[in-house]
C-alpha cells in the first residue's frame, strides 16, 4: 500500500466519529442528488410516456412543394410573395422506396403506413366531424396500443369495419356491431360497421379519431397508390431527431421528431430539468463546504504533527497527497453509500406507490448514480485541495512550537 494512503487512512480511522459524520454528510447529499435525479427523470419519463407512448416518435409526411416562380425579364426587379402550393394533393407516392430505407434503420420498433383524412359521420340526424386514419390491419397497434385500449368489441379492421372512440360512440348513441355512415372530404360515402370501441383517456382522440382499413381509406380519399403519412416508433425516443434528419436527408420528405411536435412538453421538461440541476448543484456545494471545513479543522488540529513530518524532510507533495487522499476517500465512500441509499429510497417509494395504487413517478434506475459518484468524489477532492495546500505550507518551526 502506498504510504501516503496508509497515513490518510490512519488519520480517518483515528477520529472515527468525525470521519463517519463527514462520510454520512456526503452520503446524504448524494442521496438527495440521486433521489432527485430518479424523481425528476422518472417524472419526465412518465410525462413523455403519456404523450409519446401512444403516438409516433417520427412522422414522415409529403414534402411541401415550393411554388413555381415565373422568371423575371432581364433588368427588372422581382418581388415575390410566397404561398404554399395547393394545386396538387400532397401524398407520398414513392413510399415503397421509403419503406426500404426504413427497413435498414436500426432501432425502429414499429412502422405504420397511413392515409389520413377528414370526414363526417352521420347517424340519424346526428352528424359529427371525424378524422379517419387508414392503417394496415396488421399494423394497427404498431404506434398506439389500440388493441389494448379496446373496451368493447375487438381490434379487427376488415374492409367495412371501423374502430371509434368510446366518446364518439356515446355522442352518436351507437354500439358495437351497428353501422355508421361516413362521408369523406373527397365526397366519397361509405357505410361501415363499428367493430370496436376504444378509450385512450385522451378526450380529443376518443371523440374524433376513427380507424379504418388502409384499402378502405384509399377508396374514400382517392389515393390509389400514395400515402399521406408514415409513422415510426423507436426503441430510443431520444434518437428521434437524428433518425428524422437522416430520413429527411435521404428521402427529401418532411420528417418531424416527436419533440419538435410537442414544444410545450419540451419546455416543461426543460423547466423540470433546470430545477433538478439547481438542487443537484446545491448538494454538490454542500459536499464541498462540509468536506473543506472539516478537513481545515483537521489540518489545524494536526499542525504540530505536520510540522514534525516536515522537520524530518517529508516533502510538501507528500503532505498534500495525504490530505487530498482523505478528501477522495471521504468522497468515494460517502458517494457509494449515498448511491445505495438513494437507490433504496427511490425503490421503496416506487414500490410503496405501486402497492397503494397511487404510483409515484420515481424510477430508481434513473438516479444518475455514475454521475453522482463522479461529481461527489470530484467535489470532495476539490474541497480537500485548499486544506491540503494549507497543510503542505505549514511552517514546521512555528507548528512544532505550538
Amino acid at each position, binding site marked *: *500500500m*502506498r*504510504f*501516503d494512503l*496508509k497515513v490518510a487512512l*490512519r*488519520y480517518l480511522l*483515528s477520529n472515527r466519529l468525525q470521519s463517519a459524520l463527514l462520510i454520512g454528510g456526503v452520503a446524504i447529499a448524494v442521496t438527495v442528488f440521486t433521489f432527485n435525479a430518479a424523481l425528476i427523470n422518472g417524472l419526465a419519463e412518465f410525462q413523455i410516456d403519456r404523450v409519446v407512448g401512444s403516438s409516433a416518435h417520427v412522422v414522415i409526411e409529403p414534402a411541401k412543394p415550393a411554388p413555381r416562380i415565373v422568371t423575371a425579364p432581364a433588368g427588372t426587379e422581382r418581388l415575390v410573395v410566397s404561398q404554399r402550393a395547393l394545386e396538387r394533393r400532397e401524398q407520398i407516392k414513392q413510399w415503397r422506396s421509403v419503406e426500404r430505407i426504413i427497413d435498414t434503420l436500426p432501432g425502429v420498433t414499429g412502422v405504420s403506413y397511413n392515409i389520413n383524412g377528414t370526414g363526417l359521420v352521420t347517424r340519424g340526424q346526428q352528424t359529427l366531424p371525424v378524422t379517419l386514419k387508414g392503417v394496415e390491419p396488421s399494423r394497427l397497434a404498431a404506434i398506439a396500443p389500440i388493441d389494448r385500449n379496446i373496451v368493447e368489441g375487438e381490434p379487427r379492421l376488415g374492409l367495412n369495419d371501423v374502430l371509434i372512440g368510446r366518446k364518439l360512440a356515446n355522442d352518436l348513441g351507437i354500439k358495437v356491431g351497428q353501422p355508421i355512415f361516413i362521408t369523406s372530404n373527397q365526397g366519397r360515402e361509405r357505410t361501415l360497421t363499428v367493430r370496436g370501441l376504444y378509450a385512450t383517456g385522451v378526450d380529443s382522440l376518443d371523440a374524433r379519431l376513427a380507424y379504418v382499413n388502409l384499402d378502405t381509406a384509399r377508396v374514400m380519399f382517392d389515393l390509389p397508390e400514395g400515402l399521406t403519412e408514415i409513422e415510426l416508433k423507436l426503441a430510443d425516443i431520444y434518437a428521434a431527431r437524428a433518425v428524422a434528419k437522416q430520413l429527411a436527408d435521404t428521402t427529401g420528405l418532411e420528417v418531424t421528431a416527436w419533440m419538435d411536435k410537442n414544444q410545450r412538453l419540451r419546455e416543461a421538461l426543460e423547466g423540470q430539468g433546470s430545477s433538478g440541476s439547481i438542487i443537484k448543484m446545491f448538494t454538490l456545494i454542500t459536499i464541498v463546504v462540509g468536506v473543506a471545513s472539516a478537513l481545515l479543522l483537521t489540518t489545524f488540529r494536526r499542525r*504540530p*504533527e505536520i510540522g*514534525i*513530518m*516536515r*522537520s*524530518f*524532510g*517529508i*516533502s*510538501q507533495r*507528500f503532505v498534500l497527497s495525504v490530505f487530498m487522499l482523505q478528501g477522495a476517500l471521504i468522497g468515494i465512500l460517502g458517494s457509494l453509500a449515498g448511491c445505495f441509499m438513494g437507490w433504496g429510497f427511490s425503490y421503496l417509494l416506487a414500490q410503496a406507490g405501486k402497492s397503494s395504487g397511487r404510483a409515484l413517478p420515481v424510477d430508481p434506475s434513473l438516479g444518475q448514480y455514475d454521475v453522482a459518484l463522479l461529481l461527489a468524489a470530484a467535489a470532495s477532492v476539490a474541497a480537500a485541495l485548499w486544506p491540503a495546500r494549507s497543510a503542505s505550507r505549514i511552517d*514546521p*518551526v512555528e507548528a*512544532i512550537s505550538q
Partner: protein
Amino acid sequence: MTAPLLEVDGLRKVFVDEEFETPVLKGVTFALQRGEMVAMLGPSGSGKSTLLSILGTLMRPTSGSFRMLGRELTALREAELSDFRNQQIGFIFQYHHLLPDFSALENVLFPHAGRLWRETRAGRERAAMLLERVGLAERMHYRATRLSGGQKQRVAIARALMNQPALVLADEPTGNLDRENADQAFALMTEIQRETGTTFLLSTHDRELAERCERRIYIQGGVVVDAPTSAALGTSPAISARQPLRMVPGEVVAVVDRTSNTTRDDGDRRLA
C-alpha cells in the same frame, strides 16, 4: 585532517514584524567535525533554538552561510532542503513529538517510508533494529500514546537515526525527562555516536550532561563566546562560570568516523 562536517560563518537572523526588528543571531561562526558530540549552552533567548532551526534547514538565515558535507545550504531551494534534511539531518526535540496515531515502529519508519512513498522490508528491518537498539524491541508495535515519557524519547532518538544522518540536532533532548531517564537517553546518544560516528549537536541547559560532551559551544547574546558569563551558565557549583568545562575522564572513549566500520564491543549490530 578531514574537512569539517559543518562550517557556520557569520550567521545572522533578524526576526521582523510590523513594529520591531529583533536580531537573534548576530554573526555566529563555528565548525563541527565529523563524529563529534558537542553541547551548545546558553541562557534562554540566546538564540540556541533559532540556530538549531537554521542548521536543520527548517529556517533560513537573514545573512551568513553554512556548509554541510561541502554543500552551501543557504543556496538550496525548499524541495532540495527538504530532501537534504531527510537524508542528512536527524532531529530530537525536548518534547518527543511522536505521531500519536502510529506505532513506535511506524514512527521510526516514517522518515524513510515518507521519502519513498512506500514501506520497504529493508526499512522495516532497520526501524526494528533501531528500536531493539534503544531497548524497545518488545514495544515496537505499541501506539506512541501507550509509551512512557522516557520510552517516547528513545523512539524519537531511533527515528532521528532512521535515514543514517550525518548530523543529529537535539534541542533540549533530556529537558522533559527525569534524571534517570535523562541519563539513559544521553547514554544512548553517546553510545550511538560512538558506534556510528554520527555528529551530535545538543542544545541543553543541563550542565552535567554538557560536561560529558566532547566539546561545548557557548551562545550568548546571539554570538558564540569563548568564556561565558555567569548569566550564561547560572550559579550551579557544578560548573564555574569562569572555569572552562572539563571532560569527564573516560566518558568518551572514541570518536568514530562515519565511514569506519566500528562495532560495539558487546557485538551488537552496527547502526551505520
